[in-house]
């Protein structure tokens, strides 16, 4: 299988699999037990916390373990907003128009709780409108959440600008760094963020463990109650095997980031060159400031789900923002926000390389995709209209 869907979930690293297998065989992995097994579990937990903190230049005490990226975003936005509102008068939250659905839906839920949400538009490359942001950022804004990088179009934001402006306004800043962490250097101090969501599934960690960085001194309400875990901020028994796997993947990511990123950039460049030879293909997102190994395109006059199914038959796995691939049958809001026409957005494809991608995989796409596109276009009434 030529796997080009790291952005959904990267293959779990073999050393992570081995570690987790070993841990799953152990009894009593409860870090709050005074037993020897409990102490060992506590050690795995705190080692992972250090490894994850190391990847983003945070202090271990600033990392909260959660189960998924979506939970991290929910806890970040809801916990920060509900805490900040206790000490500040305003109730406004700013998000960008191309946030992940977990941010958008959490913001909508907060609206029902009396917060008001301002959405900042983006340009055709997916870059947040700085002027609109500065105009929206008034004294009533409690919280901003702008993603570091977009999983669908690959664009990396000028996050320092947005975070600095928020701080000058005495506003808390959260970023969803899930698509970026492990692939681009993330330093929470340089970025100037108060909170950051990340997940190991992007860089070889297992499902079932993710993290939320919350800067020391920033107050956060929990989403639920019942235990002392994670200093009451995320009650519930820790998933030690998954957390340890996440930690090990983070350590591996920190050690190999330069080599991997450089390789991924090169691979993406080659892939872009090959795909640009297909007629009526448009590249989406920022051509320069983007996630390494991420190529996002729109192929006009064909539909994304049909493309994915045919690619899958040729053992190539990728992703799409077409409405047919979405359970709600709506075009990806990201593609709408960057101004793509609905009919064009149906033909979106996202290729993201993983650590295991090699040039053979790239050649495989370059050989198969043009034939698949030609076949589907031959079947498409729109292609004929376009040719007339």
């Amino acid at each position: 299988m030529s796997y080009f869907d790291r952005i959904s979930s990267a293959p779990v690293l073999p050393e992570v699999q081995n570690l987790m297998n070993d841990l799953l065989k152990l009894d009593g992995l409860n870090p709050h037990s005074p037993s020897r097994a409990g102490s060992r579990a506590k050690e795995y937990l705190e080692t992972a916390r250090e490894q994850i903190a190391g990847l983003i230049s945070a202090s271990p005490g600033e990392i909260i373990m959660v189960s998924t990226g979506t939970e991290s975003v929910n806890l970040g936005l809801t916990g920060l907003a509900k805490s900040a509102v206790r000490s500040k008068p305003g109730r406004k939250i700013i998000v960008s128009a191309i946030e992940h659905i977990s941010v958008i839906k959490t913001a909508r839920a907060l609206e029902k709780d009396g917060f008001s949400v301002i959405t900042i538009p983006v340009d055709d490359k997916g870059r947040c409108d700085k002027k609109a942001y500065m105009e929206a950022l008034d004294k009533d804004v409690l919280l901003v959440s702008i993603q570091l990088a977009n999983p669908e179009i690959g664009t990396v934001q000028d996050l320092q600008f947005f975070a600095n402006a928020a701080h000058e306004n005495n506003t808390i800043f959260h970023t969803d760094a899930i698509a970026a962490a492990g692939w681009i250097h993330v330093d929470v101090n340089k970025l100037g963020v108060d909170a950051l969501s990340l997940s190991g599934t992007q860089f070889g960690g297992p499902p079932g463990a993710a993290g939320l960085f919350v800067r020391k001194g920033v107050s956060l309400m929990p989403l639920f109650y019942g235990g002392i875990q994670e200093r009451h901020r995320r009650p519930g028994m820790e998933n030690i095997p998954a957390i340890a796997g996440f930690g090990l993947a983070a350590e591996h990511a920190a050690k190999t980031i330069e080599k991997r990123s450089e390789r991924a950039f090169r691979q993406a460049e080659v892939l872009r060159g090959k795909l640009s030879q297909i007629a009526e293909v448009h590249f989406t997102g920022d051509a320069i400031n983007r996630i390494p190994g991420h190529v996002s395109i729109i192929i006009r006059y064909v539909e994304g789900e049909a493309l994915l199914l045919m690619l899958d038959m040729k053992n190539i796995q990728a992703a799409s923002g077409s409405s047919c691939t979405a359970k709600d049958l709506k075009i990806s809001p990201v593609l709408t926000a960057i101004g793509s026409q609905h009919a064009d957005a149906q033909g979106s494809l996202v290729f993201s390389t993983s650590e295991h991608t090699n040039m053979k995989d790239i050649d495989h796409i370059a050989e198969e995709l043009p034939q698949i596109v030609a076949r589907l276009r031959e079947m498409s009434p729109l292609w004929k209209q376009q040719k007339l």
Partner: protein
Amino acid sequence: MYSEKVMEHFSNPQNVGELENPDGVGEVGNPTCGDMMVFHIRVNQDTQVIEDIRYKTFGCGAAIAVSSMVSEMAKGKTVQEALSITNEMVADHLDGLPPQKMHCSNLGADALHAAINNYLSKKNQK
């Protein structure tokens, strides 16, 4: 997600194409919604049997499989018989479709009926 039957028709769709001077043309859907189908039929004037049927489809796996299945079901039937084919019958012949695809992609019978009605209205004008 899809049945084997759907994948069979998707990977090897039958009767794709267009007819020269078709007796009836039917078009449903639009690319904004995700799926669009254009059906052409050739009808034997004496027997009213659909002797040939072709289509072009823009859409997902379900839309392509549905188009192929409808074309197979209608070929060789009289126009009156073909008018009794429903979208539900097409889905059944494909061993079912995912619920979210039933309304958006299961438009094959509508496209067939549109082509037949186009043929009938042209015939009545003669």
